[in-house]
């Protein structure tokens, strides 16, 4: 059973066509990675799923339901969330306020506080920084906050855009473990990553995106063994 199905997708910005003829599946409870070089259209793909780009052709369905016409602001209601790569937090809001923005539409106070507690349990550093302006956080803390915000809606499918970009190498491993833990708790993940080696180690299956098209699709383990892949993407 696929939680997300993308079929024959063309999308881009304005008149610039970036993604062409793209088809991707994410399995229920699966962990799918998309790897590829800079400018391959990875971020565009996630933004397209989240209705932030112009879609010219194709369908995107979530749990069998077409979501191409749902506005970005309503996608988090149906169990989807997205952690963008850059500017993934509101720098002028405090950590608490950022998390509160994660569940804007949630009316019940108990649900909010229980989710808040779960995020604080998962990332204890955020609780310490509770009232601090998010703009003053370190890179790793920002990523934790961004993921934490996304978890505030308790999503079934989480789109992650290069969560480790710009982080110190020592932090990367830890963050990936956190992400993998999300998956083992039953959340489906779609991860876009340039650090292909790391991504392939943790993901179940992976797509290789190049020039706006899917070049290869296989189980992560197989790809990790493929010599061509190693030569192209992992040697960097």
């Amino acid at each position, binding site marked *: 059973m696929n939680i997300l199905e993308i079929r024959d997708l063309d999308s881009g910005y*304005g008149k610039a066509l970036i993604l062409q003829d793209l088809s991707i599946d994410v399995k229920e409870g699966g962990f799918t990675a998309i790897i590829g070089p800079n400018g391959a259209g990875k971020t565009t793909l996630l933004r397209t799923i*989240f209705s*932030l780009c112009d879609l010219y052709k194709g369908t995107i369905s979530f749990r069998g339901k077409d979501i191409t016409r749902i*506005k*970005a*602001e*309503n*996608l*988090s*209601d149906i169990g989807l*969330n*997205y952690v*963008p790569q850059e*500017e*993934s*937090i*509101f*720098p*002028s*809001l405090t950590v608490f*306020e950022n998390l*509160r*923005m*994660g*569940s*804007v*539409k949630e009316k019940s106070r108990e649900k909010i506080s229980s989710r808040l507690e779960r995020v604080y349990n998962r990332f204890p550093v955020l609780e310490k920084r509770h009232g601090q302006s998010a703009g003053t956080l370190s890179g790793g803390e920002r990523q934790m906050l961004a993921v934490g*915000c996304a978890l505030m*809606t308790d999503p079934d499918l989480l789109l992650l855009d290069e969560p480790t970009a710009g982080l110190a190498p020592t932090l990367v491993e830890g963050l990936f473990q956190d992400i993998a833990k999300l998956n083992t708790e039953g959340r489906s993940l779609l991860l876009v990553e340039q650090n292909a080696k790391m991504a392939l180690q943790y993901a179940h299956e992976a797509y290789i995106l190049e020039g706006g098209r899917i070049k290869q699709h296989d189980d992560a383990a197989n790809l990790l063994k493929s010599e061509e892949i190693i030569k192209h993407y992992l040697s960097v």
Partner: protein
Amino acid sequence: MNRGRKTRPRHSSQDGVYFAMEDLLSYGLLTFATLALPSLGLCLAIKVTKYFNLAYGDIVTAGAFLALLMNLSFKINIGIALLISIALTALLGVFLHKVVFKALMEAKVGPLTLLVVSLGVGLVIRNVVLIGWGPQPYQFNTPLTRAKHLGPFFFTPNQIVMILICILVAIGIFLMLRYTQLGRLMRATSDNPSLSLIRGISIEKVYTYTWIIACGLAAIGGVFMGMLGTIKPGMGEEALVTLFACLIVGGIENPYGAVVGALITAFAMEATAIWISPPYKVVSAYLLMFFILLIKPSGIFGREKIQWKYFLGFLRSRQ
């Protein structure tokens, strides 16, 4: 040679200096009361919607005229007329946003295009007001009172009320921004509109609320300007660049800066009127704006340091 300059008061005696200070304090505060709230409203509008709305001056005019309509035609007390005007002006702002600006913002045109469009919108509002009321000036129907000396101040009772309302409303807006959900939403949308969408914030709603607040503040400013002077179709347009001066002095997207900028600009204007030449009052606000743009474009509350090198740096710059 220059007769205009003959009007320059010379305060040589101790007494004169005291009176000049009294003038500066009183008039400065009154000018501040007319500028602060529209400046704050314009600041919020720019902060959230990210473009300069040149129709804002004419929305100030519309606010004053709507209150005038209530006050003169329907014989409503000025206080209640002000409240009704706030509501109607807010409606006007929302209407303009939905009809004109929303579609353009969704088409992702640049801030400059929106600025040019707002110019056209302002032209329309100003001339609709002109058709409705004609070019002559109007006054609110308020009781005429003499000003009294109160310590270092010289105010009429109405003016004291105006200054108090101004300060209280400004504090209210600050508290709203800091502690309410709407304030958080506005700050979040201002920080990053597309992330706000991802987080499930309906930024369209935030824009709507922002316009309600901004136009409500514009209405208060328009009524205050009318209470101090007269009400005429060009009043807001004349005030617009002064409002921008207030914003730029304080830092364009900083609400506290907008109010402090209004304070500084108001005092600079009145000081110019007292010590230099009354006709150059408005020019002093513009010059202050250029000076700030020259040394610290982000305003006095901006993060960057004062850049004196800009004065001469351009001569050497090679890239």
